[in-house]
């Protein structure tokens, strides 16, 4: 693994030797990754590379076969339900499908965590929800229901709900999937603004490399369940790893086979 840039910094998310298998298929193989306070890490990789599996581990929706996931110092793989609940208060998650509650308006969606998990008075909650909706640019759409929103607006609403409780960590699953490039770029802008104005640590899972390069302090690439490259966008672009090169240049799988021999010799060199 490369880019040991922040040893002095505090790791907010710390993944160690994480392995997960579904049935007999190994989805994650001894993955280790640190996300430091205040940075944006983009986890990239092709479909089925294990990105979403890592995300589900980090937010405590699934437990690994081996290895540990620590968030804010609590090991999610061994902590109690109460500890897990406390950690979850520090994480905001925006899912790929947005996962807005269809029977609630945008405003009610954004206010839901406040209503449910705090004892604040209703006017205070309304104001806080408005601030968050304002931050994601949805203040005018707050009375709409999720079915009345466009794809980009849904993602923004999901982000507004994810940051409702001012989490330390924001986890985004494919924020730009299914969006046109302009809307996707707008979301990237939003993620950067959130990082700057709320000081959040952001873990983005995405397959859109250009988006990852635009927002991320560091990019990590998963390939077949293993982390094959971690580094700043420029380090990442310069990576000699054949799979990374293939991904960066957007080559199809067939062409990659031609470089297989090179990969084998590279790996031999690497091990030596």
């Amino acid at each position: 693994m490369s880019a040991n840039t922040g040893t002095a910094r505090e790791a907010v998310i710390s993944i160690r030797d994480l392995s997960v298998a579904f049935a007999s298929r190994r989805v994650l193989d001894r993955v280790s990754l640190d996300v430091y306070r205040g940075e944006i890490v983009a986890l990239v990789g092709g479909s089925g590379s294990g990105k979403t599996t890592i995300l589900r581990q980090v937010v405590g929706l699934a437990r690994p076969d081996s290895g540990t996931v620590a968030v804010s110092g609590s090991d999610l793989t061994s902590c109690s339900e109460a500890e897990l609940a406390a950690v979850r208060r520090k994480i905001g998650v925006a899912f790929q499908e947005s996962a807005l509650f269809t029977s609630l308006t945008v405003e009610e969606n954004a206010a839901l965590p406040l209503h449910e998990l705090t004892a604040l008075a209703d006017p205070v909650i309304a104001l806080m929800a408005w601030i968050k909706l304002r931050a994601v640019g949805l203040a005018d759409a707050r009375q709409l229901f999720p079915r009345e929103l466009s794809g980009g607006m849904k993602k923004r609403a999901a982000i507004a709900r994810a940051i409702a409780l001012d989490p330390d960590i924001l986890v985004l699953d494919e924020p730009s999937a299914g969006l046109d490039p302009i809307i996707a770029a707008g979301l990237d802008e939003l993620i950067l603004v959130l990082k700057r104005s709320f000081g959040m640590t952001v873990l983005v899972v995405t397959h859109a490399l250009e988006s990852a390069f635009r927002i991320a302090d560091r990019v990590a690439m998963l390939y077949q369940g293993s982390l094959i490259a971690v580094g700043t966008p420029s380090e990442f672009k310069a990576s000699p790893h054949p799979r990374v090169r293939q991904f960066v240049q957007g080559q199809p799988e067939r062409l990659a086979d031609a470089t297989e021999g090179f990969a084998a010799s590279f790996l031999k060199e690497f091990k030596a």
Partner: protein
Amino acid sequence: MLAAVGRAAIGSATNVGALAIQLWRSVLRLPAALPVVGHRRRWRTAVQQMMAIGVSALPVVALMSFCLGFVASLQAAAELRRYGATRYVVEFTAIAFTRELGALITAVAVAGRSASAIAAEVSTMVVSQEVDALTVMGLDPIDFTLAPKYLGALVTLPCLTILSMVFGIAAGYCFLAASIEMTVRAFVRDALAAIMLRDLVLTLIKSLLFATIVVHVGYMEGLRVSGGPEAVGRGTTAAVVKATFFVILTDLAATALFYAMGWSAAG
């Protein structure tokens, strides 16, 4: 073959176990859905569920009960007339509805309407990651979704059952008034003589059991859904079939138990 039987047995045992855990957790969360002592927003959801499960089922339950009450009286009268005992149709219909049919018709109607609706709603929540979203927000889907539905069903099913009894027995009167010109006075006197408070209580207990089955089977079938939108359809069908089946199975077990324990008014 043996392996298939074993797998099926393990599968159903797992299901029953999961259902039992789900039931227990939702019972623990029920107080939160109550008014005053519970969570204001849960109670609001519970009231919405009472409307969805109970109030909107009124017409269908009333109509089904009336029709079945009429049919039952007709069939009973066809036999009893041969012994010159047509007026015992009153007793027959009153007993049939207070002991059995009131709760059963209601449960079957609600299983058809609400088990499917619950399964569809929950499976849509699973597919659109809403259940995951609740979990990572630190909200328990059982607390948030299941408990208010359960409370709604527990309140409305006994009410619907009483409504069903009223309509079924009224249908018996309509039949008798038309066929042997029985007076209301005579009918009410005979019907009240046949109805036992004990039967009513036992039947209402049954309706609580049926409410439990409809809501929990619907919820569990919804949660089990994985995959795309077509899985939602399969889940709702399975929910109705299983809920109806378990309602009848439970009816059998409960009735047998009530007689075995000597709680029933008969004999």
